[in-house]
């Protein structure tokens, strides 16, 4: 067993998802505390450039599997490479971003290796030679502290946008090792038949700024001022379940327990009361602004700034003001 830390760098089309760099930053700290090396794992096709990038973001070494069977994320194919690497190299920890792909990949690999898993962590620390993590449970209503048994690697996924992307250092150098794919195409039971990109649509989980509307927008056209403010700020548009269930806006926009969990720098809640299930998805946003005509609305207990008033008057005024300032 080693003290080394492995981090999977999620990518699509040769471009890294920033959650991979966030995980790499966590890996850097953990590797330093354990006194080990930090290795990045890059899987895909034509991803050599990414390996170099991983070193610049802090990896000491990179394992690359560049193969046509790995072009798109497929659980079995990806998990087989990482499982094999972990068996050969015996890292102390394996860290990934808690994206959908990271959650399934980490779970599958941990089961194959028979090791402990902590998903969607918001704090990661080293105590002695083992990790201690904190993660939200009960949809954010409690926080659990989790420690690991003796099995290695300890497998951790980190929540998106909680940990900073490390600074890039173009001068860093490191060793790149090519490893092959672990499964041949014929041994992979799943085939990707098609992909409908969500590019240009809502990407709530990535957004720095989210402007959301609830029942208070009173109809599909009520989302127009919400949209205008979101666009002015270069942000995404969210919604409460009440608005989604009413059919005013598609489910993809729903924030909360049964929707998306988001953590933008700025969350503007308009005509949203602040039910516990909505809060579950957004209350860890860095700054929360609420516009609601009811001064008793629970959302004000979680907001940093509040405006009591009609959203149809205040939201357009905000849009105008931002337009002036942002030129």
């Amino acid at each position, binding site marked *: 067993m080693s003290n080394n830390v492995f981090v999977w760098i999620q990518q699509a089309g040769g471009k890294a998802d920033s959650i991979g760099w966030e995980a790499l930053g966590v890996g850097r700290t953990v590797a330093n505390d354990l006194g080990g090396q930090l290795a990045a794992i890059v899987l895909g096709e034509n991803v050599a450039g990414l390996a170099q990038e991983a070193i610049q973001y802090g990896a000491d070494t990179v394992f690359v599997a560049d193969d046509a069977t790995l072009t798109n994320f497929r659980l079995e194919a990806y998990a087989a490479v990482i499982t094999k690497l972990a068996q050969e190299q015996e890292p102390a920890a394996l860290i990934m971003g808690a994206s959908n792909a990271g959650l399934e990949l980490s779970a599958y690999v941990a089961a194959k290796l028979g090791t*402990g*898993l902590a998903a969607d962590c918001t704090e990661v620390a080293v105590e002695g030679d083992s990790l201690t993590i904190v993660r939200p449970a009960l949809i954010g209503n409690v926080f659990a502290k989790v420690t*690991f048994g003796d099995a290695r690697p300890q497998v951790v996924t980190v929540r998106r946008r909680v940990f900073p992307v490390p600074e890039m250092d173009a001068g860093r150098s490191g060793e790149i090792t090519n490893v092959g794919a672990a499964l041949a195409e014929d041994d992979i039971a799943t085939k990707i038949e098609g992909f409908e990109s969500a590019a240009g649509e809502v990407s709530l989980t990535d957004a720095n700024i989210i402007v959301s509307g609830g029942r208070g927008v009173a109809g599909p056209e009520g989302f127009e001022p919400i949209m205008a403010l979101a666009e002015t700020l270069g942000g995404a548009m969210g919604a409460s379940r009440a608005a989604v269930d009413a059919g005013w806006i598609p489910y993809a926009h729903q924030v909360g327990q049964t929707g998306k969990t988001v953590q933008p720098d*700025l969350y503007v809640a308009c005509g949203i009361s602040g039910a516990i299930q909505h809060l579950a998805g957004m209350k860890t946003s860095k700054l929360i602004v609420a516009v609601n005509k009811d001064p008793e609305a629970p959302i004000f207990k979680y907001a940093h700034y509040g*405006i009591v008033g009609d959203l149809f008057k205040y939201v357009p005024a905000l849009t105008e003001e931002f337009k002036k*300032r942002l030129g």
Partner: protein
Amino acid sequence: MNIVVLVKQVPDTAQLSKTVDGLKLMEEGGPRIVNPWDEYAIEAALQLKEAHGGKVTAVSMGKPESAEALKTALAMGADQAILISDVAMKDGDSLTTARILAAAIKKIGDYDLVIGGRSAIDDNMAATAIQVAALLDVPQLSYVAELKGADPAAKTITVVRLRESGRETVSSKLPAVMTAVKELNEPRYPSFIGIRKAAKATIPTWGVADLGLEADQIGAAGAQAKWQDVSLPPVREAQVEMIEGEPEEAAKTLVDKLVAEKVI
């Protein structure tokens, strides 16, 4: 098509209120419900059975009261249910649970598909069903938002998976495991006849001995991830600052503050 559905009983988070916080809810339990995502799993299993024939078996690991969750599955239309309950299974982690569920599925035998929920609202791991797939060594289809078609004779299934970057259509060999998201369907309400049937049903309970598991593979002894303590989320110190005034004036004040906070 024979389908096993993984059903977990969880605290009802709708009970959370000013007086019932997360810790109280976890301790006291209160009214417990079928994990919301598992309802989509049950509905998907029933729809596949209606289209292709076969049998739906609902399986739950948990305290004896988890039988209630299984009764809901039976009332919705599942053919049979099995409760896995044993004190030796206490204080496990996602992998010990997956070991137990995988052993139960093997004992049930002759399955084409296992369906679970995206995640359980109590532990929020989004891992257990996926780990079941790894242990059974069958393909795993996560975040399924649409069933495109299944061919039990050819042993194939095609689904649409929800990824952050878009919707992916995937075909897979069967048997396989899949997990359901909300978009997959609208779970049916139990029928009156279903409820009566479920009330009368006896649900077999399996323990460690029935599954042939080693004591150090399950429960607290087998857990490699250990929940040390659970606490309430840190209370935010910041008090809300109310912005007063007419729209233009309030907008100016707020924008000034947000610019100063450097979020814009």
